[in-house]
């Protein structure tokens, strides 16, 4: 029954299923690191703040669905500018250009120009667009409110503003059809002879003219509305699901690993102590163990979450309360076997202290079993937490995968066919669970040689 770490690893690395588990886990860790590095903690905290998702589309499918379709659905584009500035005598002209090669089979649903201008005086803002056929359309000219000293002015220009329609109407003679009742984006992106999408390169120019000082354009973005967006699409509340899914990874790993390590450590110490002590101590400890073992976990977890609190750390604690019992049972019976071995008896005769025998002679023998149990109990913890979150009892400040599914079901995503909202979180839960099941399976085969014959 003795294992050296190297021998275990050697055997483990030969197990195909174990290595599959390790590779999946490494990918998940990489995803967590990507989440930490690329998505600032602040933006993840704003997950539940609708104001921070205004620029995103509502219930958009993932962008890659277009690969499977002959009719390309317009993608929701958030464009960043190419900036330049010019000095014409006393006038400074700041130009932000947004180029987009529009190859979709539908009009954008709308467009929004968002900006923050830093200036003093009263600069003039102009927007025009150069179409693929070379014609220029003048959209907006507006002067920003006067300011005597330096101010920052935040504003947006919407495609629905009447002034845009009026300005386009100057070019109405170019179009072979009547422009009445057609919204501005359907004119700008239309062919001249019929009201159908004109594909090609569109360049939007934003000019800011100022006489007195040199203005600065910040947060300048052009948004073309569409029905597909990003890698994972967006949900009903315009949230980018890829961010939620990515952030769910470290959370799920944290919950799963903390719960399983906590449960295994407690169970191991409890069980080994009971088994080593024996007699009355054993009896009392094991009866208590029986009581917790036979309690229905989910109803009690729900009551605990409702009455005590649903912070993610509390939920981890609750899961540990119900997680350690099985491990305590097994490690007790293993400790009872080990304590009859001669080297343990020898240590006792030499007068070694009890805790030293426990931690130096018995515990190390149980370590392989402990590692296997850690791996095997991770999926259960993740699935249970996801279940609690799915019922709406999870920590609302952390978007776990279960929480995303809870939102999906409360906006009846299934009924509305929003598969991109339902499928990925569940698959992520299962894949994370599988990684640990595979590893635990491989470990089990090493720890229990009996299983190998099977």
């Amino acid at each position, binding site marked *: 029954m003795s294992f050296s770490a190297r021998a275990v690893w050697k055997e483990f690395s030969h197990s195909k299923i174990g290595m599959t588990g390790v590779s999946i886990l490494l990918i998940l860790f990489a995803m967590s690191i990507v989440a930490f590095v690329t998505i600032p903690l602040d933006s993840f905290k704003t997950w539940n703040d609708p104001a921070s998702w205004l620029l995103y589309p509502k219930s958009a499918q993932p962008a890659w669905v277009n690969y499977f379709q002959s009719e390309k659905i317009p993608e929701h584009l958030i464009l960043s500018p190419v900036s330049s500035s010019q000095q014409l005598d006393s006038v400074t002209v700041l130009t932000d250009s947004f180029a987009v090669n529009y190859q979709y089979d539908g009009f954008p649903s709308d467009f929004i120009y968002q900006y923050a201008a830093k200036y003093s005086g009263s600069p003039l803002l102009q927007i025009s667009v150069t179409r693929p056929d070379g014609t220029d359309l003048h959209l907006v000219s507006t002067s920003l409110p006067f300011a005597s000293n330096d101010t920052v002015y935040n504003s947006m220009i919407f495609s629905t503003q009447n002034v845009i329609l009026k300005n386009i109407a100057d070019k109405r003679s170019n179009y072979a059809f009547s422009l009445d009742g057609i919204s501005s984006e359907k004119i700008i992106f239309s062919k001249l002879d019929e009201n159908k999408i004109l594909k090609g390169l569109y360049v939007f120019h934003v000019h800011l003219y100022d006489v007195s000082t040199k203005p600065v354009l910040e947060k300048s973005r052009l948004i073309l509305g569409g029905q597909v967006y990003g890698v994972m699409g967006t949900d009903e509340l315009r949230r980018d699901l890829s961010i939620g899914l990515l952030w769910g990874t470290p959370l799920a790993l944290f919950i799963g690993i903390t719960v399983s390590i906590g449960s295994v450590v407690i169970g191991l110490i409890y069980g080994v102590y009971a088994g080593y002590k024996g007699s009355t101590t054993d009896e009392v400890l094991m*009866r208590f163990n*029986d*009581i917790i073992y*036979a*309690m*229905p*976990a*989910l*109803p*009690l977890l*729900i*009551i*605990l979450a*409702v*009455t*005590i609190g649903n912070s993610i750390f509390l939920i981890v604690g609750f899961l540990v309360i119900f997680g350690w019992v099985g491990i305590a049972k097994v490690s007790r019976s293993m400790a009872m076997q080990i304590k009859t071995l001669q080297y343990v008896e020898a240590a006792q005769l030499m007068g070694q202290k009890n805790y030293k025998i426990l931690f130096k002679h018995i515990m190390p023998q149980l370590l392989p079993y402990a590692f296997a149990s850690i791996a095997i109990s991770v*999926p259960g913890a993740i*699935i249970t937490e*996801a*279940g609690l979150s*799915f*019922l*709406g*009892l999870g920590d609302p400040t952390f978007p776990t995968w279960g929480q995303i*599914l809870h939102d*999906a*079901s409360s906006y009846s995503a*299934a*009924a509305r*066919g929003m*598969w991109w909202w*339902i*499928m990925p*979180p*569940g698959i992520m*839960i*299962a*894949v994370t*669970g*599988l990684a640990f*099941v*595979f590893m635990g*399976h491989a470990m089990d085969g090493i720890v229990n040689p009996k299983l190998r*014959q*099977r």
Partner: protein
Amino acid sequence: MGFKKFLVKRAITMFGVLMATLLLTIILVGSNMDSISKQSAALDIRQQVTNNKSLLSSFKTTEQLDSYIDNQVKMRITALGLDQPWYSPQRIGLSMYKILTLDFGHAKFLTSDSGSSDVRDIILEKLPRTILLFTTATAIVSVLGIFLGAVAASKVNSKIDKITSGFAIISSSFPVWWIGVLMIFVFAFLYPIFPARATPDVPASDPRYLGSLLYHMALPLITLVIIGFGSWAYLVRNFLVGVLQEDFITAKRAEGIDEKHILFSHALKNAAPPIVTILALSLSGSFGGAIITEAVFDWPGMGRLYFEAISVLDLPVIIGATYVLTAFFLVSVFVADVLYGYFDPRVRRQ
């Protein structure tokens, strides 16, 4: 230790667990429960007084009325024993005694389909539906699982064996409720074969009720079976493979007994104790899982009742449902223990 002594010991432990769970539940919800009962007592008395016109007209000022009501409320609270803090031994003892005798009191918000607010009526109405769904599912799962597991065990490392094991591992990694959501998506909306909400749409008095109930049960049942039978087959396979290596099986083979006969009558019989135990445990375990599954499918059983009670914090229902769920769980654990001890005498001697 004799079998009887073993049984008695298990029964005492089980009863201890039941009491401990009950105590824990009461402790957890006690303080909330206390303020709610007091409020409802006060409300009750105020209503009584305002409905009683002659009593109402006998007061000259509102202060008089208020002090009268306050007095009455105090008397009521004393009569109900609510003047003591909720954690006093008498109060806890009384509530535990009441619950033990299945007197759960009245629900605050929820009612049964027939309109009764007695928690016992509500639970008695919901419980059979949960038992119907989950017992049927467990029955189908175990038959399928035992058959498939036996086939896989007889051909170790064959294609069917590998597929069974793989399916078992993968299917047990998905949350049941997520598969449920997916099934609703595919079979209720994409291809509208089954209804999305599992609540039958005809009243219980209608003769077509049973048919409607079964039709609405189809989707949750299919989901439970799909998720369940893989891991069952895998368990049965593992037990059987162990038994098939024993000497007596080799002896049977040497006698020239048909391989199928060996598998299904001799080997399966010897693998029965753990299989029966797990059958009982998985049945009770599925009751706990029913909370989420029934919430997903809107199946009108105990699980959904529990979920609804939690979301409106209807404490008498929560306590009653926890008690019944725990009792069911314990009865099946006990039955599993007894069966195991019956099949495998070694357990009794431990």
